C-alpha cells in the first residue's frame, strides 16, 4: 500500500489505525464468554432453520437412498440447502467479517440431522441408518465460505460459489451413495441396492410410484442425466443463494439495525 500523502488519505489511515486499536481493545464485561454463549445458543436456531428449509423443499430426497436419483436429487437438494447458509453468510460476514456463515450452518445442520435421523428414524421407527442417512453439506459450505473470503463479494460468491455448491453437495454425498447404486438381483429383477432397500423396508404411506426420480427422460445427453441436472441445479442454487441473501439482509439484519437506531 502506497504511503498516504493527501490529507484525506492521512485521515483515512488514522481512522483505520483507530479501528485497529478498537478491534484489539480488551473489554472488561464483554469477554470471550459472550462469544461462546452466542455461538452455542445459535446452534439450535440455525440447525432448526436449515433442517426445516431442507425438509420443505427436499424432504424425501434426503430421507431415502432410493430417492437419491441422478435427475431430481442434484437439483432439489442444492437449492433447498443453500438458502440458510447464504443468509448466515451475509449475517456473519457483515457483522463480524467472518467467512463462516455457510460452514456454521452446515455443521449445525449436520448435528441436528444425524441426531434426528438416528433417534426418530432408526431408534423409534427402526429403519436402518444405511437407508435413511442424511446428506452432509459441510464440505460444500467450507468451499462456499472460502470463495466469499477470497472474493469479498456476494455477487461473485453467488455466481461461482452457488454452482460449486450444487456440484460439491452432490459429489460429497454421491461417494457414500455409490455402494447403494450397485445392481442387485431381487424378485427376478435387476434393481439397485437402494431400490431393494425401498422395497424391503416397508413404507406403507409412501408407495413406490410417489418417488420423484428419473424415469427415462433426459436420456438424449448420452445417458448422462446427472450432469444436465447438475448444470440446472447450479443455476437454481444461484437463485437459492439470493433468496438466502434476502432473508439475511431484510429479515434478519435490516430489522435489527432499524431497532438499534430507535434506541
Amino acid at each position, binding site marked *: 500500500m502506497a504511503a498516504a500523502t493527501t490529507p484525506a488519505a492521512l485521515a483515512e489511515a488514522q481512522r483505520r489505525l483507530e479501528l485497529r486499536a478498537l478491534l484489539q481493545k480488551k473489554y472488561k464485561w464483554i469477554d470471550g464468554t459472550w462469544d461462546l454463549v452466542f*455461538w452455542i445458543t445459535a446452534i439450535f436456531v440455525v440447525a432448526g432453520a436449515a433442517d426445516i428449509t431442507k425438509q420443505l423443499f427436499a424432504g424425501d430426497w434426503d430421507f431415502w437412498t432410493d430417492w437419491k436419483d441422478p435427475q431430481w436429487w442434484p437439483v432439489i437438494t442444492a437449492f433447498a440447502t443453500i438458502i440458510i447458509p447464504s443468509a448466515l453468510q451475509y449475517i456473519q460476514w457483515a457483522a463480524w467479517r467472518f467467512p463462516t456463515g455457510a460452514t456454521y450452518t452446515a455443521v449445525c445442520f*449436520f448435528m441436528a440431522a444425524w441426531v434426528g435421523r438416528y433417534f426418530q428414524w432408526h431408534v423409534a421407527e427402526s429403519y436402518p*441408518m444405511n437407508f435413511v442417512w442424511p446428506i452432509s453439506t459441510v464440505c460444500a459450505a467450507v468451499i462456499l465460505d472460502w470463495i466469499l473470503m477470497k472474493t469479498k463479494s456476494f455477487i461473485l460468491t453467488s455466481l461461482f460459489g452457488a454452482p460449486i455448491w450444487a456440484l460439491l453437495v452432490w459429489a460429497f454425498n454421491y461417494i457414500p451413495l455409490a455402494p447403494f447404486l450397485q445392481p442387485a438381483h431381487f424378485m427376478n429383477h*435387476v434393481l439397485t441396492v437402494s431400490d431393494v432397500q425401498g422395497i424391503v423396508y416397508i413404507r406403507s404411506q409412501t408407495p413406490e410410484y410417489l418417488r420423484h426420480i428419473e424415469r427415462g427422460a433426459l436420456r438424449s445427453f448420452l445417458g448422462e442425466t446427472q450432469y444436465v441436472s447438475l448444470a440446472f441445479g447450479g443455476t437454481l442454487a444461484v437463485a437459492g443463494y439470493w433468496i438466502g441473501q434476502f432473508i439475511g439482509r431484510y429479515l434478519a439484519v435490516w430489522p435489527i439495525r432499524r431497532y438499534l437506531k430507535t434506541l
Partner: protein
Amino acid sequence: MLASASAAHAHGGMAGPSEIGPPLLTSGALGFACYWLVMLWPSAKNRRTPDDPGKNRNATGNRARSNGNGQSNLRKSAHAKPVAHLKKVESKMRLLVAILAFAIGAIVTSSIAYAHGEAGDEPFLKDLTTAFYDVTISPTDIRVGEPVTITGSVRILETWPYTLSPPEKAYIMPVVPGPVFALKERTVNGTAAPGSFFVEKGGIYQFRMVILGRNPGRWHVHPGIAVEGTGTLVGPGEWVTVQPSAAKFVFPVTLLSGQTINLNSYRGGFVWWWSFAGFLIGVAWMLYWTLMHRTVTNLAVTIQLGVNDDAPDIGLITPRDHMWMNVLAGLTIIMLVIGWTYAAMKYPVRLPQQTDWFTPEYISSGEKMAEVHPSGATYDDATDTLLMNVKVKNLRDSPINLKQYIMAMATFVNGNNDDQAKAGPHDYVGQLEVEPSSAIAPGETKDLTLKITSKIFSEERLIPLRDPQQFIAGLLRFENGQKQQEMVVLRTSVIPTQFHSQYLP
C-alpha cells in the same frame, strides 16, 4: 392436544367413553393431586439470624408492622411490589405443575394406537373404490426372521367415485407399523412386482407377499393398495406375534457381481465415517474463527467499514487466516478426490434407480351368472344392521346361490362357521342372511333381502351416515352347483333409519 391424543381409536376413529375415559380421569386426578401437593407444600423455613434486619418478615414475606417510623413504611412499600409479583409467579408455577402433571398423565395412560387409521377415511373412499376378498395372513405366530405370507385379491370397483382421479397406477404393499417386517417377495397376478403397476376400473389383482419378522412384538398386518391420487386403501388385517430370536435379523441380497450383502447393515459404517470426516473439517474451520478471533466485539469495527472490506491492515481477516483457510479448503478437495477415486474403483458398476412398472395379466371376474338390480338399502346405526333389497336374475342353466357380500375390507358370508373361517381374517368377517334363502332357479328373477348385522360397519366406519355421497358398493359373490363363481358389483343408496341430533354444523 395431548389429552385428545388418547382418543385415537385403533383404526383411526374417535374412541368412546370406555376407551377415552380412563386416561382422561387418571390424568385429571394426577393434575389435581399435583396442584394441591404444590399448594400445601410447606414453605422454606426462615433461616435468617436474629440480627438480620429482615427477621420481622411474616410468612408471606411482608415486613411486619414496625414501630411507626417512616423509614419502615417506605421499606414496606418498596417490598410490596416484588412480593405481589412473586406471588403471581408462584401461582403461575403451580398451575404449570398441574398442567404438566395432567399432560404426563394423559401421555402415560393413553392406549397405544396399533392400527392404521383407515376408520378415519370417508366411507365412500373405502366402499366405492376397492373390495378385498379371500385374504389370508399366516402364520400369525413367528420368530424374528421367519416368514408370514399374505395372499388375497383386490378388485378396483367400477363404482370408483367420480370425485377421485381415475385409477391408473397402484402399488400393493403390507400395511404395518413401520419396518417391523421386511418384505421379501411380492407377486401381482403371478408376476413378480417389485414396484408399481398399472390398473383399471374392474381390474382384479391377486397378490401374494412374503414378509419376514424383523422386530419382536404384536403387530397388526394388513394388505393394502395405494392408488395414485387416492392414497392407501387397506384390506382386512390380522394380529401377528413376532417372538424374539437368538439370531440377529439379517437380510441377504445378492449383487450382480456375485457378492452377497446383509442389507440391514451394508456400508452403514462407511456412510457415517465419511460424513463425520467431512464434518470434522467444518468443525476445524469454525474452531479456528471462534478461537482465534473475537466475535461479538467485532461489530464495533465492521459497522464502520464497507461490506467488501476485509481489512487485513486492521486485523479482521489476516494473511494468516487466508493461509489456514487455504489449507482447510485444500483438505476438502483432497478428501473429495480420494473419495471419488475410492468409490469409482470399488463400485465400478452403478445403475440409476429402477422403475419397472407393468400391466398385470387380466383376470376375469367369472362367466356371466347373474344380473343384479338394487332397490335401496337402510342402515340402523343403533344395531349396526344393514338391510339391502336386490332383484337378482339367474342367467345360467343351473341354480345359483348368493354366497358372500364383500364390502371394502369386510366379507359377509351366507354360510356356517367353517365358511366364515375360510373367508378371511376373523375380525373382518361377518354373517350374511339372505331371504328367501333358497337357490335362484335358472332364468328366475328373485327379490332378495340381504341382512347384515356387524360391528365392522361402525368400527371401520363403512356406512355413510351424513355424507355428500350416501352410497355403498361391494361385490356379490354367486356360486352354482359346479362351484363356478361370479362377482357382481352392487351399488346402492343407503338411508340411515335414524339421524342423530347435531349441535354443531
